[in-house]
């Protein structure tokens, strides 16, 4: 459409500088999944309730399904793909594997990203802190116990 004004976006995604033209209404989730082919963030509820689409923007967890791509201009985005160097795993990812904190796995990238932010804020969280912080990430398989266990393990308790 001729009356649409696209924006030039410059953003650091998982440590790499990215420049792209985006339409003003482009959602961050679509930008990541379709333009950059980073498909770890998932479209779940699509109304910022389930947490499957969680990514970090300047270290803070956001729902990329309800966040404009334009709003990450000149900022830093980390998706689940960027939690560790390629071929490696973060301590938290190791803990998820050690504990077996998966069932279907759809919520896992969002869980990992949110828990990464949690551990940055509270490096040795209590079970209550984990439960409170992770309240906004839903696991439809209801496998919460092991997810919490894995986060506590990564936090050293």
């Amino acid at each position, binding site marked *: 459409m001729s009356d649409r004004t696209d924006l030039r976006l410059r953003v650091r995604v998982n440590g790499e500088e990215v420049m792209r033209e985006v339409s003003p209404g482009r959602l961050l989730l679509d930008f990541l999944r379709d333009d950059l082919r980073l498909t770890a963030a998932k479209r779940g509820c699509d109304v910022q309730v389930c947490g499957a689409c969680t990514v970090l923007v300047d270290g*803070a967890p956001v729902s990329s399904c309800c966040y404009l791509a334009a709003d990450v201009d000149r900022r830093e985005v980390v998706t689940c793909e960027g939690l560790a160097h390629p071929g490696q795993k973060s301590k938290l990812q190791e803990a998820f594997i050690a504990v077996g904190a998966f069932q279907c796995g759809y919520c896992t990238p969002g869980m990992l990203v949110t828990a990464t932010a949690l551990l940055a804020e509270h490096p040795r969280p209590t079970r209550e802190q984990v439960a409170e912080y992770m309240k906004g990430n839903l696991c439809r398989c209801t496998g919460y116990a092991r997810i919490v266990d894995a986060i506590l393990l990564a936090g050293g308790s």
Partner: protein
Amino acid sequence: MIRVLHRPGSLEEALELIGCRENRRVYAGGTELLLLVKLGLAQVRELVDLKRLGLDGIARDGTVVIVGACATHAAIARSRPVRAFIPVLAATAGELGNVRVRATGTIGGNLCFADPSSDVGCVLLLEDAEVELRSRRGTRRVEIGRFFVHAFSTVLADDELLVAVRVPVPSRTRRRVTRYRRIALGERPTAGAGVSLELDAGGRIVRARVAVGAGNPHPIRIDEAEAHLQGQDLATAREGAEDVGRLAATACEPIGDVHASPGYKRHLVGVMARRALEDVVVELEATRG
């Protein structure tokens, strides 16, 4: 469809942009507006981003804490002056929605959206806050109790921006405790009510606020319940907790939804008001000088 995104770098520029065209809307966090756009409930062709106006500061200025409209809920929950002087606001901001909504959603957006399922407006009502509204015509301050008109409706004019929330710092010579109680299904509060009491040196209530948040179309004070508490001591106030709950329940006009009928919400409002009062009394008794 969003066609244009304006990103003004100054308040003057933003005030120029707003109000002069249909289908142009301001946004900050976008946690409310983008949802509406996605659900097809709002037609927006042009967005005006308010995040580059420097409206996100939080500071104490003498007898008032000034919270910039674009301060996020997470920033308010963390803020030293808010925690020190308006702890009920810090607590409410820290429990709002989920961690992602708190990281992006702003106090100004929350108030202007005027969702009946919200706690922030009620807490500000308990603390006698004002909002500062700016337009090219000038600045006006509006008591928060006069800001809300109905569900999703405020007195904000098309060419106005809410730029700050001003919350008076309670006097040091008196003891004030404010508590807000709510019940939420998932992340949306269904019913909420709060009480704020301030005692004089003799232990009499010299300032009483009772307000209903979620459960009424917009936050309201319950004058009759406040009058009931005014001048009493704590023991008498506690005995009247049931009455305060009943007055709050009677005064509100809940909107029913799939989770709760109006009658059930009314019942819950009464319970929340009673418990908030009991919380305040317990807290004041514990800190008796």
